[in-house]
């Protein structure tokens, strides 16, 4: 079946379940990613976020249900297949090598080459350094020096580098796994700004987080996961920040009440 450009949704999961042996990691989860949309996937630890990412990224096939890209059902054999369709995942480890320079990391595994003296195919470092600097500047990140080791960048800068790299290599969909988890307030704001900029470029983003305060300002749509089940998808207009918080807290609200009770004499 040919891709259907008229499909409203870039990615679609339709009642997807995933079992590992007898363990149910996901059950009947549906998710639709619109074009140019930032879709926040919210959930606490163990809610099934990682499993969902891995299905989207082509690491695991779903046990049940359908995964559609551009309206067409797909069965990815490997992350490479997903990447070929423009679905790029930036994991928490970022796949950056700290001892290597910014431009060497940016083009790691996909180094541009040129032919020297008619025989030797060499790594075009000048081009790589220039492109890396430009692409990062496009995303609003000023790199002091493309020769700088990535280890000397801040956590936020590294996250932005990994995102800029995925975009440069043709991502239509960016799956960001907890990009703000280990970051301070200011650096998180930088990452959120990058996400907004990616959306402005027409790229769809799946933003996985458990921080409502990071998700709400940037998100267009919110899907909440709890223990492998979807608690629903909501457009921003349909749900307030507090409602998201309440749903996220779920059982926790009761726990908080209980704690408060036990505190009072």
């Amino acid at each position: 079946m040919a891709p259907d450009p008229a499909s409203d949704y870039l990615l679609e999961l339709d009642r997807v379940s995933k079992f590992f042996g007898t363990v149910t990691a996901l059950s009947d989860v549906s998710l639709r990613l619109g074009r140019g949309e930032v879709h926040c996937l919210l959930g606490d630890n163990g809610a099934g976020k990682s499993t969902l990412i891995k299905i989207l990224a082509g690491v695991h096939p779903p046990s049940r249900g359908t995964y559609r890209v551009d309206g067409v059902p797909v069965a990815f054999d490997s992350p490479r297949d997903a990447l070929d369709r423009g679905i790029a995942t930036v994991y928490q480890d970022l796949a950056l090598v700290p001892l290597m320079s910014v431009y060497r990391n940016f083009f790691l595994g996909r180094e541009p080459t040129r032919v020297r003296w008619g025989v030797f195919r060499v790594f075009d470092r000048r081009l790589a350094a220039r492109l890396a600097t430009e692409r990062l500047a496009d995303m609003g990140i000023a790199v002091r020096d493309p020769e700088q080791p990535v280890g000397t960048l801040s956590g936020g800068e590294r996250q932005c580098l990994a995102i800029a790299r995925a975009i440069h290599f043709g991502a239509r969909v960016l799956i960001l796994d907890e990009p703000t988890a280990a970051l301070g307030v200011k650096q998180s704001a930088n990452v959120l700004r990058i996400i907004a900029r990616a959306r402005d470029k027409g790229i769809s983003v799946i933003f996985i987080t458990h921080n409502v305060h990071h998700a709400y300002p940037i998100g267009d749509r919110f899907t909440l996961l709890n223990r492998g089940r979807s608690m629903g998808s909501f457009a921003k207009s349909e749900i307030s920040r507090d409602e998201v918080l309440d749903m996220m807290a779920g059982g926790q609200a009761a726990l908080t009440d209980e704690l408060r009770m036990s505190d009072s004499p």
Partner: protein
Amino acid sequence: MPGSSDEPRRGVNVARVLARPEATAIAGTALVFAIFGATAGGSGMFALDGVMSWSVVAGYLGILSVGACLLMIAGEFDLSIGSMIGFTGMVAAIPPIHFGWPVWLAMLVSLAAALALGFINGQLVVRTGLPSFIVTLAFLFVLRGLTLAFSVIVADRTIVSGIGDLAEQDPVARLLFSGTFGDGLFRWLAHHHWIHTLDDGAPLVRGIPKVLLWWAVLAIAGSLQLSRTRSGNWIFAAGGDAAAAQNMGVPVRRVKVALFMFTALCGWLFAMLQICDVGSAAADRGLQKEFEAVIAAVIGGSLLTGGYGSVIGACFGALIFGVVEIGITYTNLNAEWFRVFLGGMLLLAVLFNNHVRRRVTQAR
């Protein structure tokens, strides 16, 4: 120096020059030359024949250190390289002496055996995930033992002499490994009395030993590969963070196995040059060379943990080795001080490298 001329840069940055991995080794070389210049300056150490004697020692070690350094940058060690020297030397020497094989054929078979062993070493390391330190340490013993045992079984001896003369008559071995290079130039220099001559007018130093040529070729090729090719980027990445490299599509396993094979090739090259130069092969050749090669690489700025280093640095490390080992015999000092000096140098280099790593991996 290869690796710096078309590096993207804006102006000369002193801090960046000092931060290069080979900076310590170059400073160390300058220091060593200054010390020996002051203590042994008038002894002939810096006359042409003196220069040749220490540069040959540096050249042999330099060949090994290029392989050891690239492998270390990729995050692995090869401790079997010393045994590889004894093994490949015997494989190249026994068949021509005992079975009448042409020397070139025995050398080729020896090369094939070296590459096969490097391949096995590499496969064992990448497939088991065990530290290469242990896997190749095992090979160090296995290979040495096998070499000794088989030499006795096949040739009834552990030292095979006469291979130098045969190599001299073999066109391939003579071209590649035997004797010196640029003899004509040296005769010409001697004729004009610009260099020391023997009584009959022949130059005291006949030419440039071929080991220096090979060292230069490997150093330049290795350095260019590391800094200017895609595979060089992969070597850094494989050692810097193998998982990240794998995720970005770098064939980490292939890179590592290829480098184990390259290290084995360096050991083979060492052995071929040595049997042609010394004239004999022995099963116990190359003792402790694995450590010396690692030391040269570390003095040259390579991190033991991988991901960082320089071929040029490793070559300067080897040069320091040669200058100190031979230079000390030109002084009044007991030659055993050589080890003390090198040990101290190694310790200093490791301390310094550690500091560099901390600086490079910490956010500013």
